[in-house]
């Protein structure tokens, strides 16, 4: 009993061992003076900066603004990508009509549109929403399409023989079959979502985490810059953890996703 609890503790702590060692080494290096804290603040300085920003409310406002932008862009771009992926996966006509165009646009790096987007929308909310939506669209679209295409045709035939209606065939066979692939798209999309938003906020914004980091750079507040970077890491991890949980709930039938 004791041994197993200890083992569980060890297994739980193991993934955090490397970050902890890095943090300690970093703190030690700055404290001893190996690294100048004008270039790299010590972890304790970053925590202090975080505390300060949290106390004044600046951090929460910016975090809230960024999260809202990310989610709005994700819902719009992901929604369109999902719908078009479904349409093209289910209908040859729709695919022949749109897939070539989508593939052409896909090869344009969406961040290269920033100058154009600023000309169109200025630095308002629309610019960020547009860029995030565009970035999120492609992975969701491509993986939804691929997922539907790779559904086992034997299962679809089985569904037909057993008298499933078109709706039933879709909800009970095609969509669940495509789900693992759709989740892959979701995880890619979440990564691209943060990346796009941070770049867009860094270049053109008057609020948000990227803006906070850029402001801090102007005033040489290295600790706030590092704080912003760490918050990105945390947000990315959070999004990933949520997706994992969702995957485990939706794909429990698949041995590859079952928790060990």
């Amino acid at each position, binding site marked *: 009993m004791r041994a197993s609890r200890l083992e569980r503790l060890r297994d739980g702590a193991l993934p955090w061992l490397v970050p902890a060692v890095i943090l300690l080494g970093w703190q030690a290096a700055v404290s001893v003076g190996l690294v100048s804290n004008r270039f790299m603040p010590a972890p304790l300085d970053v925590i202090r900066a975080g505390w300060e920003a949290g106390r004044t409310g600046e951090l929460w406002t910016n975090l809230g603004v960024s999260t809202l932008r990310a989610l709005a862009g994700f819902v719009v771009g992901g929604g369109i990508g999902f719908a078009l992926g479904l349409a093209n996966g289910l209908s040859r006509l729709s695919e022949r009509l749109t897939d070539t165009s989508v593939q052409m646009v896909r090869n344009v790096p969406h961040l290269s549109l920033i100058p154009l987007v600023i000309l169109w929308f200025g630095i308002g909310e629309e610019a960020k929403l547009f860029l995030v939506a565009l970035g999120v669209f492609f992975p969701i679209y491509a993986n939804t399409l691929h997922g539907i295409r790779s559904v086992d045709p034997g299962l679809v035939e089985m569904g037909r023989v*057993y008298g*499933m209606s078109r709706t039933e065939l879709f909800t009970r066979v095609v969509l669940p079959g495509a789900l693992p692939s759709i989740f892959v798209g979701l995880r890619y999309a979440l990564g691209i979502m943060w990346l796009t938003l941070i770049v867009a906020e860094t270049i053109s914004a008057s609020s948000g985490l990227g803006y906070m980091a850029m402001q801090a750079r102007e005033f040489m507040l290295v600790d706030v810059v590092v704080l912003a970077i760490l918050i990105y890491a945390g947000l990315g991890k959070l999004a990933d953890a949520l997706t994992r949980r969702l995957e485990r709930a939706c794909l429990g039938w*698949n041995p590859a996703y079952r928790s060990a």
Partner: protein
Amino acid sequence: MLRDAVRPEPLPEAVAADPRTEPRSDPRSDPHRPGGPAPSPAELGRRGIAVTVRDLRKSFDGNAVIEGLNLFLPAGGFTAVVGRSGCGKSTLLRLILGLETPTGGRIDLEGPAGSARRSEPPKRIMFQEPRLLPWARVVDNVAVGLSGHGSRSARRTRALEALAEVGLSDKAGQWPATLSGGQRQRVALARALVSRPGLLALDEPLGALDALTRIDMQDLIERIWRTQGFTALLVTHDVAEAVALADRILVVEAGRIALDLQVEVPRPRRRGDPDLARLEGRILDHLLGTPQG
């Protein structure tokens, strides 16, 4: 015990006769059959669908697979179709099930006399692979066979009954991925049977199983067929399996029926029965002695 019934093509006599009045030569009605009282033929055929195939043709991209095939399957019979791979036996089964459209000729399915069109028993197929939905629990997979008829709880009850019939009651709440190959195929059998079909087509359903599991499955299929009385059509390349299970064996060659044999060995059949072995030998000789079509 064996009576050959090699019928001359193109027209087997049974097709000419009205299927409803055709006398059934059912070996199970033999009063000397060992084992319990035999169900009467009328009772056995009560849910079976009779199949009449007339001058059936099917070609894929100009290659004829079935060429002018005639066949009558009486309600409640167990017919096996054997042949080399590529002879058209699977295509024949898919045509009868309506999974392919014939290039020419016609197929008539006739349900039990008096049953209204809507209440006609369905036709079901068991594939070589189980084709279970991996994301549905075992009991929900079986309920797929009811194609949405009845309330949710009624479907579940019937699915559980069908699972009990194949001896898998304890697996009802599991994912298909946790079952063995033989268990999955039994779930597929329960799914095929839960709607009480009038015709069950078996497309080499045991081909992927190991020898012992296959024998268990054969016994299970035979037992359920005898209690439920559906028309069974088994496509197989395993002649021993065909001989063990069927009343009648059709050997298909180049899209035609080359040999039509009755198996009049009483049930339950013992494996290694000399009559069965002799029949199996005859069919194998026929299959191996002819050039591949």
